[in-house]
């Protein structure tokens, strides 16, 4: 994805002064890849919202007798009954339980986006809190928080996921949220902390304090807004990471509960079928790649647009 070249960026300075959000948008709008990615994300959100309308069938409906039927258009039907079933037009074929892959992919958008967003939200909540306090207060609070961060950073998330499943004693989306969210916050905490450290000693903070602002007020009104840019970027990028994380947990059998469809789960279930029933592996795989790619590209675009060096 092409970075906006710093030379072009200087042209911005000649524009009339505009609000920071508008500036951000303008800079973002010139990054075609990021814009496309935003479009894809919007589309995915729409698919997730309208899944019941868009899905050709119900995601858990089993078309008995039409087990692993290839996509109708692919011409790879081998058995006569497959060809017959294909007439019912399974756009992306069916799985071993004779469920329509396309409908499951459409509903799977809900899981993937929810996992991505909620896990990221949990990470952000913990990460911002830890980072803010650690950076703002320093001293022993910082030391303790940072050691905790180091510890979790060096900790395998799989173990956490297994333990959480065992505690909840049934798998649910929450297990996936928690497993990913409780591991992912460390990098955000470090990021926020370093941001806080860089603004803490700036004059306006000293001024705000001189005016009698309490800690909470200073943190909330003055420091946090200044860290927002990098946080938004990190958050966007970690959505993609969490979607991949869900796929990994599914591969290890710790994913979302069937019959509810998740792309990671579909991909993991298809691993014995790549050679014979290619559609079972290809479509969920592509869905994951496209979605993660979209969030990553958008995150990159945001970062470039927010990069203070580009504003010189």
């Amino acid at each position, binding site marked *: *994805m*092409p*970075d906006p*070249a*710093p*030379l072009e960026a200087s042209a911005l300075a000649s524009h009339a002064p505009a609000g920071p959000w508008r500036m951000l948008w303008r800079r973002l709008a010139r990054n075609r890849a990021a814009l496309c990615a935003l479009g894809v994300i919007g589309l995915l959100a729409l698919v997730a919202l309208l899944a019941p309308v868009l899905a050709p069938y119900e995601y858990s409906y089993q078309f008995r007798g039409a087990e692993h039927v290839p996509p109708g258009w692919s011409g790879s039907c081998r058995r006569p009954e497959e060809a017959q079933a294909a007439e019912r037009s399974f756009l992306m074929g069916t799985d071993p339980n004779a469920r329509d892959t396309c409908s499951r992919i459409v509903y799977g958008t809900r899981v993937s986006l929810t996992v991505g967003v909620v896990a990221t939200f949990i990470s952000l909540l913990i990460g911002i809190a830890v980072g803010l306090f650690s950076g703002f207060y320093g001293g022993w609070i910082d030391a303790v928080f940072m*050691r*905790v961060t*180091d*510890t*979790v*950073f*060096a*900790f*395998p*998330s*799989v*173990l*956490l996921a*297994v*333990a959480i499943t*065992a*505690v909840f004693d049934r798998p649910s989306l929450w297990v996936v949220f928690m497993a990913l969210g409780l591991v992912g916050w*460390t*990098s955000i905490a470090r990021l926020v902390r370093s941001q806080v450290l860089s603004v803490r000693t700036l004059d306006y903070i000293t001024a705000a304090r001189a005016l009698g602002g309490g800690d909470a007020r200073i943190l909330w009104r003055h420091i946090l807004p200044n860290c927002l840019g990098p946080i938004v970027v990190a958050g966007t990028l970690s959505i*993609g990471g969490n979607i*991949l*994380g869900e*796929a*990994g947990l599914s*591969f*290890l059998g710790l994913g979302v509960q069937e019959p509810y469809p998740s792309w*990671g789960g579909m*991909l*993991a279930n298809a*691993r014995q079928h*790549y*050679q014979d029933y290619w559609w079972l*592996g290809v479509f969920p*795989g592509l869905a*994951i*790649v496209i979605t*993660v*790619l979209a969030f*990553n*590209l958008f995150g990159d675009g945001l970062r470039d647009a927010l990069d203070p*060096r580009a504003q010189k």
Partner: protein
Amino acid sequence: MLTFVLRRLLQTLPVLLGIILICFVLLRLSGDPTNLLVSPHASAQERQLVRERFGLDRPWYEQLGRYLRFDLGLSYQQQRPVAQIVMEAAVVTARLTLGAMIVAVALGLTAGMVSAYRPNSAFDYAAAAAASVGVSIPAFWLAMLLILLFSVKLGWLPLPSASAPGELQYLVIPVVTLGLISTALIARLTRGCMLETLTQDYVRTAQAKGIGRMKMLLGHALPNALVPIVTVIGTNLAGLLTGAVLTETATSMPGLGRVIYTAISQRDHPVIMGGCLLFAVVFIAVNLAVDILYGLLDPRIRHA
């Protein structure tokens, strides 16, 4: 520098204790391992004996105390010293990781440099696209697709085998899979840093004097790109273990990730503990090395 290293080493102690504590709490929560240690028909009396044998009948603080003294003991399942089990597996993972890092640095630097040499060229766009897709692919899926293509269809590489984890041809697919994300990140960073350096005034001056672009890239831009690259290597190691579990499972590599994962499903507490500890030690050591390298690579950074 020495005091810095010492201080960092001192800081690792609470992290290790923290790892033990978290592991211990999670293992307590995940339930009594006795069910997986006895035959399904064991009587209550036999279960009690097994609990006694592994010290599971002791109060929790005694059990925790043993771990805090780094006394890991024998694996519940294999009845072998934990250290032995963990070290065997660690060699495999170390080989994988090192290979992945070499691939990532070599490929990433080259791709980034070529991209920076001719920005906005066809190669630049292709490399950028490849990098973006590379970080968006589920690792186990990629490994399986690579196996399908190179081992099954083309027959260029052998199918995964656990009996020869040290032979080069078996390492190709796991190393590439594991190194892909880092490759993409390094390529991107290299390109970005180099292009940024090229806009600096002193570089323009030098260019005006007629120093070639290639020489500029190698002489001035590359060294500046090294610091962030070293950081990437350090931070990427964190995601490695989860990555290693997936890659090692998909490619039959008997590494640390798989050992920990198997131990988790067997509730083999000492092995889980040992594996996590070893991983943490390596992780801390690498990050320490990265911090020291910082100082060497960038004279501006000096540790107080």
